[in-house]
C-alpha cells in the first residue's frame, strides 16, 4: 500500500478537537512529571509511554469515518469502528518503535548531548516503526495472495466435474 499525504483530512477536524488533543497532551506530560516527582524516575518513566491519547484519537477517527459514510447515505458505525481498530494496530507497531526510542535514550543520554540523544532516539523510533509496518504489509500481501490462489484452485477443482459433464453432453449432442 502506498503512503500518501492528504491535506483534505484536516478539514474533518474541528477547532475544539485540536484544543482537546492539546489539553490531553499537556495534562499527560504534566502528570508524568508529577508521578516521577512523587514516586521516583523508575515509576515515572513507565508513564512516558502511557497510552492516554489513544482512546481520544480512536474516538475521533471512528466519528470522522462514520460521518463520512453517513454523508453518502450509508451505515458508518461498523466502518468507523474498523478504521479505529486499524489505527490502533498501527499504534501497537509504533509502540515497539517507542521501546527503541527509550532504549537509545537510556544508553546514549549519559554520554552524549541531550539534543543528539533525543534526535537519535526519534530517528530510531521512526525507522523501527516504519520497518515493522513495512514487514507486516509484505507478509499480509503474501498471505492474501496465497489465500486468493488457494481459493482459485479450489473453485477450479469444484467446477471440473461440472465442466467435464457439460463437454460429454456437448459431444453426445454433436453425434
Amino acid at each position, binding site marked *: 500500500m502506498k503512503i500518501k499525504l492528504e491535506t483534505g483530512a484536516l478539514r474533518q477536524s474541528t477547532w475544539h478537537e485540536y484544543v482537546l488533543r492539546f489539553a490531553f497532551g499537556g495534562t499527560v*506530560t504534566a502528570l508524568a512529571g508529577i508521578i516521577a516527582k512523587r514516586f521516583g524516575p523508575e515509576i515515572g518513566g513507565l508513564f512516558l509511554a502511557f497510552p492516554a491519547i489513544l*482512546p481520544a484519537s480512536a474516538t475521533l477517527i471512528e466519528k470522522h469515518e462514520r460521518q463520512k459514510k453517513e454523508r453518502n447515505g450509508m451505515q458508518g458505525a461498523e466502518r468507523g469502528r474498523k478504521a479505529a481498530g486499524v489505527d490502533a*494496530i498501527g*499504534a501497537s507497531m509504533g509502540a515497539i518503535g517507542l521501546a527503541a526510542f527509550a532504549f537509545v535514550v537510556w544508553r546514549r543520554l549519559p554520554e552524549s548531548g541531550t539534543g543528539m540523544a533525543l534526535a537519535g532516539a526519534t530517528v530510531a*523510533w521512526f525507522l523501527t516503526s516504519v520497518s515493522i509496518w513495512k514487514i507486516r504489509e509484505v507478509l499480509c500481501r503474501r498471505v492474501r495472495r496465497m489465500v486468493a490462489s488457494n481459493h482459485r484452485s479450489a473453485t477450479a477443482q469444484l467446477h471440473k466435474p461440472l465442466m467435464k459433464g457439460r463437454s460429454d453432453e456437448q459431444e453426445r449432442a454433436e453425434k
Partner: protein
Amino acid sequence: MRIVVGGAVVSVFALLGDLLKPKSFAGLFGAAPSVALATLALTVSKDGKEYASTEARSMIIGAVAFSLYAFVVGRLLIRRRVPVLISASAAITLWFGCAFGLWFAVLR
C-alpha cells in the same frame, strides 16, 4: 511550561497522523514519543541526565505494555462489536497490569 510543551508536541504528531494514509501507517503516530520528548528535555535541564536516563529505562517497559494494549484494542474493534471508547478505556487496565507486572519482574 510542561503543559504547553507537551500539548504542542502531542498536537504536532497527532496532526501528522491525520495527514497520512493508509490508516495503519498513520496509526504509528499514535505511539509517537511526543510525551517523552517534552518530558525528557525538561527533566534533563532540571534533574540531570542520570535521572532522565533512569526514566527512559522504565519507559521501555511502558512501551511494551503500550504495544500489547494497542494490539488488544485493535483486535477488539476489528473482530468484536465493542464501542470504541469503552474498549479503548477499559483496556487501559491491561496497560497498568502489564507495565507494573513487567516492572516488578524485570527492574525491581
